[in-house]
């Protein structure tokens, strides 16, 4: 018997995207938590099958607004493997630089969100102001603050000039100073530490059995990082460390992300200093030979997996995306149990969820059930009838709108 059942989502101020968490509360304590996906399914995987590879590239980039480069690079790696393309080394380095700048902006964004979730809005304002530095750098390098569009099949579309590289280094220096300040804040601010430590505990064993990825796993002492385990782009030639932490809680995840920022700055400096000369892209064929490929990429939130199956034409046969949040979302229900309601927003935020990237739909078909295909017009009529049977009449609205 639980006293109160409280819905958090699909619409709730703690969540930036629609997602449903149902909590059974006893007083302020969460007794049971269940997570439901499926409010934001956009059918991108299916849409990819009807478009050419180069069109898919831009569609895939829009899976996520934050880690757009992660998805597009991951997809391209699979396509390039199928086409047997070897990208120029300079392109690999540019991809790595953009990837790390993206990680920086994603982690700074997360820091602000985490601050907001525990009612520390000052941290939100500070870290998002600093995030402007990296967004401006990205805009200078690629023309866009998000959805950079720098990738193309076989390489990249824009070069990084020496002058631009100096600008980037200058921005990175400023950010490094700020990051060290945040690490100091995280280690000294007592209310922040009280709110973060001991919350959302996930043991090493839980990480291994639930298959968590990214900073969530690394904060529990599991050093999973695709950049080291299966190097792609230029990571094989760059020197950096995989940050792990033994706190196992939200505090540990905060420290891991902050320290990863420092590693990212290190990578950016190295890559810009040692950038090899050469062309930006190799010519890619229009039709990709038949085959299938799986590609992995360490997105800011964890391991991103793309699967592409080609059939010899200019359109893929099947594209499958597993965003890192899908691997991490299983841990949330476990972390929420026996915690206070006040911890719920930060526990959810601590995996750095990206719900629309991870959203998927499953339909269960019964054996003798007939499959129904509805046209757009039928679907509209069905919707109007569905609402009318529940006492909401849209027909008047419909007449006036003349859809």
């Amino acid at each position, binding site marked *: 018997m639980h006293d109160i059942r*409280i819905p958090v989502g699909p619409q709730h101020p703690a969540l930036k995207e629609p997602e449903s968490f149902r909590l059974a509360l006893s007083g302020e304590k969460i007794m049971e938590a269940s997570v439901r996906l499926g409010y934001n399914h956009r059918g991108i995987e299916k849409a990819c099958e009807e478009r050419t590879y180069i069109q898919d590239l831009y569609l895939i980039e829009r899976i996520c607004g934050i880690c757009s480069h992660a998805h597009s690079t991951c997809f391209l790696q699979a396509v390039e493997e199928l086409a047997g393309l070897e990208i120029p080394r300079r392109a690999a380095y540019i991809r790595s630089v953009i990837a790390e700048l993206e990680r920086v902006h994603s982690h700074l964004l997360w820091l602000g969100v985490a601050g907001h979730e525990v*009612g520390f809005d*000052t941290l939100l304002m500070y870290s998002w102001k600093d995030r402007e530095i990296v967004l401006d750098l990205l805009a200078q390098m690629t023309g866009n603050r998000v959805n950079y569009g720098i990738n193309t099949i076989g390489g990249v579309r824009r070069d990084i000039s020496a002058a631009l590289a100096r600008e980037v280094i200058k921005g990175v220096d400023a950010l490094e100073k700020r990051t060290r300040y945040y690490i100091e804040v995280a280690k000294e601010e007592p209310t922040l530490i009280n709110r973060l430590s001991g919350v959302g505990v996930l043991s090493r064993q839980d990480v291994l059995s639930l298959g968590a990825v990214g900073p969530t796993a690394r904060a529990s002492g599991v050093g999973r990082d695709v950049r080291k385990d299966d190097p792609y782009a230029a990571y094989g030639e760059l020197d950096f460390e995989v940050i792990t932490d033994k706190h196992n809680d939200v505090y540990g995840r905060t420290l891991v992300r902050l320290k990863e920022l420092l590693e990212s700055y290190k990578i950016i400096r190295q890559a810009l200093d040692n950038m090899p000369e050469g062309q930006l892209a190799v010519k890619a064929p229009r039709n990709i030979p038949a085959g299938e490929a799986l590609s992995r990429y360490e997105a800011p939130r964890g391991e991103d997996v793309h699967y592409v199956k080609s059939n010899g034409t200019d359109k893929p046969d099947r594209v499958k995306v597993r965003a890192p949040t899908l691997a991490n979302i299983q841990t949330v229900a476990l972390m929420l149990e026996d915690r206070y309601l006040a*911890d719920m*927003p930060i526990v959810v935020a601590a995996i750095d969820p990206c719900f629309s990237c991870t959203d998927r739909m499953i339909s269960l078909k019964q054996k003798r059930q007939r499959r129904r295909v509805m046209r757009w017009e039928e679907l509209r009529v069905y919707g109007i009838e569905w609402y009318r049977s529940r006492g909401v009449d849209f027909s008047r609205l419909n007449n006036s709108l003349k859809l």
Partner: protein
Amino acid sequence: MLTALFSILVFPGVVFLVAFGFIAEFYDRKLYARMQNRVGPPWFQPWADFIKLAGKESIIPEEANPGVFKFMPVLAFASVASAFLYIPLWREQALLSFNGDIIVVVYFLTIPTLAFFLGGWYSRSIYSTLGAMRSLTQLFAYEIPLLASILAAALLANTWSLGEITVFYSRHPWLWVINLPGFAIAIITLLGKLQKVPFDIPEAETEIVAGTLTEYGGKLLGLFRLMMDVEMVVCAALLSAVFLPFGLSLAAPLGFVLFLFKIFAIISVLSLLRTVFARMRLDQMINFCWKLLAPCALVQVLIDLIVKGVIAR
């Protein structure tokens, strides 16, 4: 009769209080924004917010008790405005005064919390109910240290009247310095009373949307927000009367400026505190108030009793 009505309704009564409340809200928001590297609102933003809310429809939930739902903001505002009449502002005497008015003022300032509880409870929304429970739980945490620290100052003055407290401290200049620890405790607990970070637990937006205020909208929400602005001014005035009772015999314009300075100084400290802290959890707050603040307030009472004995001799 007319002068009495004027002082109750216009100056330094309700009209002055409302204007002061809006100015204080602007000051608080601007300061908070500047400390967060933001631009902050223009000076008329609180007025504009209020006018906008006043022009909107008030929607009352179907399951809510309409009487209680509508009455609570009015009750809260009325009680806070009444409390203001008993507080000495820039003179040694308050508008109204009798022996025992400290208790009345503290009681009046507790009514908004009860209004939050009842308003939230009778909204029947799940978030409002949780917010209502939280505001009542929080009340039990901060009320004792706040009351104890105010009573400590009153004990030293040997009176139950705010007017006589200020008279006593004017006669014994610099004695108010003894109460400074109590002042610090009162400021911290005031954050709980005004539901500001780190004690904005009853309206923690990322957890329970807006707590009690979730179902409120339009004029009723406007009145609640006005009440919160006014409550901030009244509480600051109470603290300045009890803990900063100096310069009260100055001439009218100078004394008034000094009074404004004290109020804005207290509001600045409140803004600073809500800038630098994260929101506490309810259990952390109760532990903090009972295990740290309440004993400190009792120590303050003890200090005042000892000083009183020394003076009497």
